């Protein structure tokens, strides 16, 4: 296995940083590197860490007020003058409120607009269901021309933000609010469209995106103590999904569990299932939000209550292994 220069994620006290910091710091790097990167905000500047860009490049930060549909259209117009605009707001508003603007004005015309879609997932916590983006992956990945990135930690969020600017066309980068374990390092490879095997295994493949990659790695470690060898695939690009890596892993293990902090309907698990059912059908179990809205609570309480912890992945692995055994 190639050395991915991962962090010591199995430590009892891993370093924890919010993925939104990666977005904020990625934008600053971009601002330094490219004169035409501009950042748009809708009254959530410090919450999304876009204040880091604002402080350094005030003339390239544009406030549209609480008007996400207009912000998206303005970004479309800016891209038509050669700018690389980053639309920044919470995922529910970014991808939901302005979905038609994204679809028809931006994606149909393949405009070079980037979407920083914050507060992804149920780990948003006490703000409750209205502010927890749980459908954003599903509703953006169905749009033609769209690229959808769901980074797993700070470093990956930073690299995804930079990579989004360096490709042509619309991109959604999803990130979260809470501090989450740092599992990669600045040296860990990241490429749009490429899934990486973070842990090799032979009995089952756990395919994850976002902060569920950490839970998958913890689950795999725990399973290994019970004699189950689990492979962990980090698929930070949900679209275009890395069919080759996913299919090859399924061919090796012949059983798959997907894990996402998002509705299983239409989300990452569905994307993996679309690949496998057409290329190499194997039993699949999906860990994620099961067709429910969230609620207020602490992030850890919610992750627990909605079945998004390592132990839930372990349980799904055991179920999928039963299905695998039955097929033999």
């Amino acid at each position, binding site marked *: 296995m190639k050395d991915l220069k991962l962090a010591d994620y199995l430590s009892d006290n891993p370093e924890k940083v919010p993925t939104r910091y990666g977005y904020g710091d990625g934008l600053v790097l971009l601002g330094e590197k490219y004169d035409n990167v*501009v950042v748009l905000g809708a009254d959530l500047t410090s919450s999304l860490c876009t204040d880091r860009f604002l402080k350094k490049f005030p*003339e*390239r930060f*544009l406030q*549209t*007020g609480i*008007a996400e*549909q*207009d*912000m*998206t*259209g*303005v*970004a*479309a*117009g*800016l*891209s*038509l*003058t*050669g*700018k690389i*605009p980053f639309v920044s707001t919470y995922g529910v508003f970014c991808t939901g409120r302005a979905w*038609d*603007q994204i679809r*028809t*004005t931006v994606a*149909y*015309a*393949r405009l070079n607009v980037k979407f920083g879609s914050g507060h992804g997932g149920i780990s948003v916590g006490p703000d409750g269901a209205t502010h927890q983006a749980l459908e954003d992956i599903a509703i953006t990945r169905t749009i033609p021309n769209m690229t959808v990135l769901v980074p797993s930690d700070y470093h990956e969020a930073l690299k995804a933000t930079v990579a989004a600017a360096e490709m042509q066309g619309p991109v959604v980068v999803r990130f979260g609010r809470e501090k989450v374990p740092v599992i990669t390092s600045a040296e860990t490879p990241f490429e749009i469209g490429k899934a990486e095997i973070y842990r090799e295994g032979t009995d089952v493949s756990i395919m994850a995106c976002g902060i569920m990659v950490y839970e998958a790695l913890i689950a795999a470690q725990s399973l290994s103590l019970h004699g189950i060898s689990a492979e962990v695939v980090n698929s930070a690009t949900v679209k275009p999904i890395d069919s080759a890596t996913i299919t090859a892993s399924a061919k090796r293990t012949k059983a798959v569990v997907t894990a996402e902090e998002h509705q299983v309907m239409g989300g990452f698990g569905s994307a993996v299932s679309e690949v496998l059912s057409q290329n190499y059908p194997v039993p699949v179990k999906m860990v994620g939000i099961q067709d429910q809205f969230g609620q207020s609570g602490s992030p850890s309480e919610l992750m627990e209550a909605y079945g998004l912890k390592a132990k839930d992945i372990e349980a799904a692995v055991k179920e999928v292994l039963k299905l695998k055994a039955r097929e033999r």
Partner: protein
Amino acid sequence: MPGNSDRDLDSVANVIRQDIIKMIASAGSGHPGGSLSITEIVTALYFKVMHHDPANPQMEERDRFILSKGHACPAVYAALAECGYFPKEELLTLRKMGSILQGHPDMHKTPGFEASTGSLGQGLSIATGIALGLKMDTKKNKVYCLMGDGELDEGQIWEAAMTAAHYKLDNLCGIIDRNGLQIDGCTHDVKNIEPLTEKWKAFGWNVMEVDGHNICDILTALGRFSHTHYRPTVIIAHTVKGKGVSYMDNEAGWHGKAPDNEQTEEALQELTRGCCK
């Protein structure tokens, strides 16, 4: 546009009207009413006011035109063909499989189109973004955005109106095709948008009202726009839906319907007799 300054703009508008009828009749569907109401506005912009070059559609110094009411694209397609962006024969492929002239504009298929529009209410935001980008680069290009009056029901228009005024975009000119009709009837009955002038003024815009079928009036207003500073301009152009074809004149029923052969013949005869004024 250079080379057209001496051409009789009313006769250009008449040719565009005839093309609109021919195109929509040939397509068997489309939106004649709102295309006929914007004909003089489009003529004034493409044949007199805007700096653009059909031989070089991406010319950096070009002024930008955004058709927010994308369904009225036949009028703009006809103007673009008349300018020479593409051969006039293409006009009869409107809405047909493989055509460069989609039912609603696709900027990648039609040379000269700056944005893909059709979902109403979005054009003014696009135009605002373009105007902002040009200002950031201290460019002198002007940006024009043509909206329908029914389209003003959309909240995003008013979001954009605030953004454009906030950024003092005096390089942006909105034009409203105030024909008073939308699919379900009079704009007054569907959802009253008045008092329109006062609304735009309250939103911080320089507002002018013109007879949208009088090219001289339109040119005067557009001239004043270019001398307005520190705020965006909107021209409320009072128009008649279906203008120039007697049986379509002010009839909401002709918003999105193609004329049959007989009706087409009648419309073209009226227009060739020049009774469109």
